[in-house]
C-alpha cells in the first residue's frame, strides 16, 4: 500500500511547529501504524534527516505510552484499540493520513508527536496510598467482594493512562482518567478506606494542572481504547460532592 503522510514537526516545547509531508510506498496491509512510522524513520535516518519523535513502549496495547491523533481521532480510525494495535489495513490505499500530537494545555509538546503527560503522574501521586495490612500473604477469599462490584472495579482499572480522553475532549478534561482511577479503588473494600480523600485530592490536582472541566459530551468514552464508561464520571462526581458536603 502507499500513503501520503502529513506529520506535525516541532523542535521543542517552545518552537513553532508545522506540518511536513511525506510519501511512503510498499507498506504491507499487516504493518502496524507504528511499524509504518519506523519504516519512515529508517528512511529518514539513512537520508541523514531527523527522524520523527513519537511515544511508544509495549506495542501490545497495555502500557498507555503510544498516542497520536490520526485523521482527527485519538488512536486512529479503529475502535477500542491503541495506536500500537492499529494496522494499515484500516486505511485505504493512497489515503492521506494527518498525524498530530495530543492537543491540551496540560500536555505540552516535547518534540514532534511526543507530548509530556507528567500531569497524569502528578494526579496519581496526589491520589495517595492504599492501606494494606502487612504480614503473610492474605487468603485470596478472605475479603468477600460482590461480583458486580469486582467487575466494575476491573473495568475502571483497565485504564492505561494514555490520555486519549484528554486529547479528544473539547475541554481538555481529564475527568475520565481521574474517574477511572477513583472508581477502580473506591469500588473495592481495600481502596474504600481512603476513597473520599482520594477523590478530593485528585480533583484538586486535576484542576490545578490546567485540565478543563467535564461538560458530559461523551467524546472521551467513544475514543478511550479501553472503552471506559462515563458512568465512572458520575461516580466520581458523587464521591467528590459527598466528600465536600461532609467537610
Amino acid at each position, binding site marked *: 500500500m502507499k500513503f501520503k503522510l502529513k506529520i506535525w514537526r516541532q523542535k521543542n516545547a517552545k518552537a513553532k511547529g508545522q*506540518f511536513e509531508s511525506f510519501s511512503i510506498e510498499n507498506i504491507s496491509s499487516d504493518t502496524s501504524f507504528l511499524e509504518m512510522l519506523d519504516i519512515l524513520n529508517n528512511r529518514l535516518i539513512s537520508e541523514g534527516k531527523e527522524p520523527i519523535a513519537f511515544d511508544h513502549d509495549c506495542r501490545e496495547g497495555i502500557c498507555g505510552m503510544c498516542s497520536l*491523533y490520526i*485523521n*482527527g*481521532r485519538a488512536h486512529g*480510525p479503529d475502535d477500542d484499540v491503541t495506536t500500537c494495535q492499529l494496522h494499515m489495513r484500516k486505511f485505504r490505499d493512497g489515503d492521506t493520513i*494527518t498525524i*498530530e500530537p495530543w*492537543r*491540551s*494545555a*496540560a500536555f505540552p509538546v516535547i518534540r514532534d508527536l511526543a507530548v509530556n503527560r507528567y500531569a497524569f503522574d502528578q494526579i496519581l501521586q496526589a491520589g495517595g496510598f492504599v492501606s494494606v495490612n502487612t504480614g503473610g500473604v492474605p487468603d485470596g477469599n478472605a475479603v468477600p467482594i460482590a461480583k458486580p462490584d469486582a467487575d466494575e472495579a476491573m473495568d475502571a482499572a483497565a485504564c492505561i493512562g494514555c490520555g486519549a480522553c484528554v486529547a*479528544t*475532549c*473539547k*475541554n*481538555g*478534561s481529564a475527568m475520565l482518567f481521574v474517574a477511572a482511577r477513583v472508581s477502580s479503588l473506591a469500588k473495592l473494600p481495600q481502596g474504600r478506606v481512603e476513597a473520599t480523600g482520594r477523590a478530593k485530592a485528585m*480533583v*484538586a490536582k*486535576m*484542576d490545578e494542572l*490546567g*485540565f*478543563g*472541566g*467535564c*461538560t*458530559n*459530551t*461523551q*467524546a472521551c468514552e*467513544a*475514543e478511550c481504547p479501553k472503552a471506559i*464508561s*462515563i*458512568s465512572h*464520571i*458520575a*461516580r*466520581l*462526581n*458523587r*464521591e*467528590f*460532592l*459527598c466528600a*465536600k*458536603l461532609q*467537610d
Partner: protein
Amino acid sequence: MSNIFCSSIGKKLIMSLSGLFLVIFLLLHVSINVTALFSQNAYNAACRFMDTNILIQVMVPVLALGFAVHILFSLIITVKNQKARPVKYSVSSKTETSSWAAKNMFVIGVIVLCFLGLHLTHFWAKMQLQHFIGGHGEDNPYALVYTLFGEWYYCVLYVVWIAALYFHISHGFWSAFQTLGINNSKWIPRLQIIAKIYAILVALAFISIPLYFILGLGEPPK
C-alpha cells in the same frame, strides 16, 4: 463545604442545580401558555393568576437569580475549558463522538439568551413587570399574543428560539443528573431518552401557540 465552588465539579454543581430549576420553570411557563389554545378567558385568567399569586411573586426574583447564576457560571466554565485546549486540531473526524448539542451548549445558550431578551421586552415588560413597578399591565394579554403571533416573522423568530431551547435541554436535562452523580450505566441511556421526550414535549407545546395564531385559529380579542 470548604471551597467546593472553587473546584470544577463544584461549579458544575451550580450549573446543574440552576439548570434543573430552569427546566422546572419551563414546565410552569408552558402550561400557562397552552391555556391560550383553549380560550381567551382561560388565558387571561391564567395571566391574572401569574400577576397576583403571592408564591409566583416571590419566585420571580428567584428565577432572575437562577438565570443570572446559570449564565455567570456558564461563562466561567466555558472560558476555563477554552484555555485548557489552546491549540485546535487541523483535522477533525466526521465520526460522531458526541451530540451536536453537547458540543455547543454555550452557543446555544447565548441564542436562547438573545431571544429571551426580545421575548421579555415584548411580553413580560408589558405584563408582569408592570405589576411589580406599580404600572398599568396589559388589560387583555390575549390581545397582545394575538397581534404578535399574527406576524409571520415573529413566529419564525419564536420557532428558532424554541428550537435552540430544545437542543439545550435535550442535552442539559440528562447532563445535570450526570453532574449530580445520580447516574450509572443503566440510567445514562434512560435519562437521555427522558431528556429527549421532555425537550420534544416542551418545544412542541411552545411552538403550538404561534402556529395556532398564524393559522388564524385564535379568537378575535374582545
